[in-house]
């Protein structure tokens, strides 16, 4: 049961009929893979989750970005996506805020946790929702956006387990940016790297749990 996932390359024949799903395409009535990734079958759907992919903004995603610069009337935000996002002055808070104050708070290099509200000609962000915030202190690490669900786990199991064991404050953006503040920053980076590399092998949560226990023992010098 160790290798439950099937690795596919672009152009691999997945079905001899037309099937729906992400990461696939249809040619001559047959379904083929678009990516180098893991095959996932659920019901009548066939999907391929790529091992590596840049972030594609979607409406409603909660993301972590870095403020690049202010160009009236918006802040340009880097989401590690090919296209930059824009945070308009009208969207920075539930309450009206003066431009001078906003520029002081959202200085270049500031990390923000915001929601994507519009994808038309531009990707627009909003800080109006309750959980949106400016992130002070802490560190960031990165994971492939396609693997964000693996970090969160089924029903949040993985993220809860990591936060409880390491007593860390973790925040995950859908764009693959993970912000954290805790006593063992190197350990968190190690965990995320392990998830990124081994996400296609089953029993990941157990292995991560074991790894954290061992690493924490070493940290405490036991």
């Amino acid at each position, binding site marked *: 049961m160790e290798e439950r996932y099937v*690795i596919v*390359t*672009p*152009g691999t024949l997945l079905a001899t009929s037309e099937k729906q799903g992400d990461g696939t*395409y249809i040619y001559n009535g047959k379904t*083929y893979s678009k990516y180098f990734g893991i095959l996932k079958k659920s019901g009548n759907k066939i999907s391929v989750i790529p091992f590596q992919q840049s972030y594609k903004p979607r409406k409603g995603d909660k993301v972590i970005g870095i403020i690049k610069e202010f160009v009236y009337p918006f802040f340009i935000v880097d989401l590690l996506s*090919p296209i930059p996002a824009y945070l308009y002055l009208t969207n920075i808070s539930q309450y009206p805020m003066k431009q001078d104050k906003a520029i002081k708070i959202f200085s270049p290099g500031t990390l923000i946790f915001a929601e994507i509200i519009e994808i038309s000609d531009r990707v627009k962000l909003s800080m109006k929702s309750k959980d949106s915030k400016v992130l002070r202190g802490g560190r960031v690490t990165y994971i492939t956006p396609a693997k964000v669900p693996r970090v969160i786990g089924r029903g949040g199991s993985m993220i809860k387990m990591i936060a409880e064991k390491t007593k860390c404050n973790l925040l995950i953006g859908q764009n693959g940016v993970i912000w954290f503040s805790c006593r063992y920053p190197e350990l968190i980076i190690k965990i995320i790297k392990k998830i990124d590399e081994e996400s296609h092998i089953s029993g990941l949560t157990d292995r991560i749990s074991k790894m954290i226990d061992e690493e924490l023992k070493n940290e405490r010098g036991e």
Partner: protein
Amino acid sequence: MREASKVWTRADGRKAEEIRELRAELGISKNASGSAKFCMGNTVAIAYVYGPMEVIPKFLEQSEKAILEVNYNMLPFSTEDRKKPGFSRRGAEISAVIKRVFENVIFLEDMPKTKILINIDILNADASTRCASINAASLALASAGIPMKDLVASCASGKVGNHLILDVAGKEDTEGDVDLPIAYLPVTDEILLLQMDGIVSISEFNKLIELAKKGCQQIYEFQKKTLIEFKKGSS
């Protein structure tokens, strides 16, 4: 003594329809989104893929699809006589043909307003450098997570004397009669690149195409195997 055995062998000891030894390595650069090294005998090509990324300058941006940039570069020490570094007409031509190959393979409309950059370096040239470049770039694109129809395999066939040969190498390229490189997309059974120098009859030309396709199939299987083994080896 080769004549005595009645089986014609080539200068490097291969049979007429045998390709050179293939070697490939993935993930050779940490800075690139995807990278690969592909060796066909003594020909060594390295491909780096960057992106999808923001298009600069902005006027090159296309609102409905991504743009592709390919830079093919032969390093000065790659040939027997030192090659003058910098721009060359040959390099520009090969960059353009490789770009046309991948424009037909990548789903560019999936990534509007972006750019994909492919840089190819030839470390050692021993004929078929454009084939090795396409094979390396194909692997690098797949490992970078770029949506593609299929992996592209490329191989050359040729004619030396009265013999039709597969995977032209060394002196067969410079002293042979015909050199015919193709790039082949197995899923649609399409030929995406076809160049030829020399003179052949139509029947010989058809045979050469079939021969090159056979070589491409072998390379395609090797590419698939490399990708899967890379992922299994890293975990």
